[in-house]
């Protein structure tokens, strides 16, 4: 069922990781991603993995939840692996069959890319699992607030993101419901040529669009009733404040980046 997708899911909790300022978490995620791209040796991956495992453990997120989140990425991972495996040049040929040629360098690159993607995605999942989407958008808004001076509607953009996140589960449920209703009228979404199948999606897509517009309309009305008036003059219930934990977290993040660079230097 569509409902089982855990994309962007937040698992409320009360750990150090949950309590960190979302801006800290957002910036550290960026540091982590940058570190991943700086990795130049297997030791670097080991270090990033250790960091990921440590944060997962401290935040009480079940490793199983991370693995489940990675499932939809199987296709991309396999695709990347295959691409790197077969299309990397090199002399030390490992395997050859007709025009297919696999080199040691290719194998190494494929494995390295797969590890990098998995670590990268798990890291960002960890951010969304431990930080409510609202806190993430809030952090983004505040980090980007200097752009307000350039007349970028930062608040409106973050509100849009927040609402989009809020309605994902609702629209997934709705899709399920409409699909059932059309199947009950004999709609056949599974067989036929590609064109036929694309056509068979219309009974699903049209009602979904119609209902999304209706929802948007009603939501706009409800927001107006709750005195929504744009970002001007708004206050926030939750004030973001950096504490010593945030400083400590930044120190650890810097240590990770330094460690990765060091290992790259040492070639471990």
């Amino acid at each position, binding site marked *: 069922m569509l409902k089982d997708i855990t994309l962007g899911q*937040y698992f*409320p909790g009360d750990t150090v990781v949950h309590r960190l300022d979302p801006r800290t978490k957002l910036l550290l995620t960026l540091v982590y991603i940058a570190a991943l791209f700086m990795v130049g040796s297997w030791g670097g991956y080991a270090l990033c993995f250790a960091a990921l495992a440590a944060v997962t453990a401290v935040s009480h997120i079940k490793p199983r939840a991370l693995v489940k989140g990675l499932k939809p990425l199987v296709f991309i991972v396999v695709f990347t692996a295959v691409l790197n495996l077969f299309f990397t040049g090199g002399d030390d040929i490992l395997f050859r069959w007709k025009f297919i040629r696999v080199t040691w360098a290719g194998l190494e690159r494929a494995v390295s890319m797969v590890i990098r993607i998995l670590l990268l995605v798990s890291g960002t999942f960890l951010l969304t699992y431990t930080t*409510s*989407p*609202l806190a993430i958008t809030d952090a983004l808004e505040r980090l980007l607030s200097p752009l307000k001076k350039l007349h970028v509607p930062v608040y409106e953009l973050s509100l849009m993101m*927040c*609402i989009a*996140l*809020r309605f994902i*589960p*609702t629209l997934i*449920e709705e899709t399920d419901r409409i699909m059932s209703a059309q199947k009950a009228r004999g709609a056949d979404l599974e067989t036929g040529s590609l064109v036929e199948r694309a056509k068979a999606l219309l009974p699903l897509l049209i009602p979904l669009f119609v209902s999304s517009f*209706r*929802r948007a309309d*009603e*939501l706009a*009305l*409800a*927001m*107006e*009733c*709750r*005195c*929504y*008036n744009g970002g001007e*003059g*708004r*206050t*926030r*219930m*939750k*004030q973001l404040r950096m504490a010593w934990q945030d400083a400590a977290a930044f120190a650890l993040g810097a240590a990770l980046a330094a460690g990765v660079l060091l290992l790259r230097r040492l070639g471990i």
Partner: protein
Amino acid sequence: MDPIIRIKNLTYTYPDGSRPALDGVSLDIMPGTFTAVLGSNGSGKSTLAKHMNAILLPSGGKVLVDGMDTIDEGNLLAIRRRVGMVFQNPDNQIVANVVEDDVAFAPENLGVEPAEIRRRVDAALEQVGMYQFRLHAPHLLSGGQKQRVAIAGVLAMDPEVLVLDEPTAMLDPRGRREVLRTVEELCRERGITVVLITHHMDEAARADRVLVMDAGRVALDGAPREIFPRADALRALRLTVPDTTALLLRLRAAGMPVPAGALTPEDCAAAIWEALR
């Protein structure tokens, strides 16, 4: 005492409408009262409600909220803050994906101090009995719970009036009971003025006053025990009467001396038992 909402000879025609949706409505709503608005689909109930917080502005006539004219744009936020509005579909009025963040939306819009927002959010969630769900994701709540969150989101504005447009239409009986109990408590214990639009006669029976709308006008206006015994008039307006009233009217028609205005099952049974003895 001055009325909290005063409507004078209100007419309204939708931009694409040929006949007016409201056609000369005049009424006063007194502070702290519980008014139910009945009427068939298209009778103008929702249009009337939307005039109470300046979502729609009169084509003719006047709407005054706490003395402020809704047509005056300078009053807009002051009026919206005083008159909170809750709609039919709870899914489409919740903005955030954590309950307490959603409840904070209105006071944040109003520029209230953070500490005060926290206090109001907690108080509002307590009042609707949803405090223990404050960190939940709304889409995992039941319909009745979502609707109570929506009510809390409006209460956080500290409104004087609560206008509810068929808040129970999409709920199951349990959700309906939860929402109705919450609304009654807010009126009876907190003194909030309630205007409840509904299709359910048993909900209207609990109000102080019932307004029946028909073709953009107020067709009937009075206490429930005066309105519901008028079964023929109600049927002509495409409405039914509560089963209690239907039973008492049947008994009266057969000559049994029972009052027609006993609306709750308890009062109704007591009145019949009185007559039987």
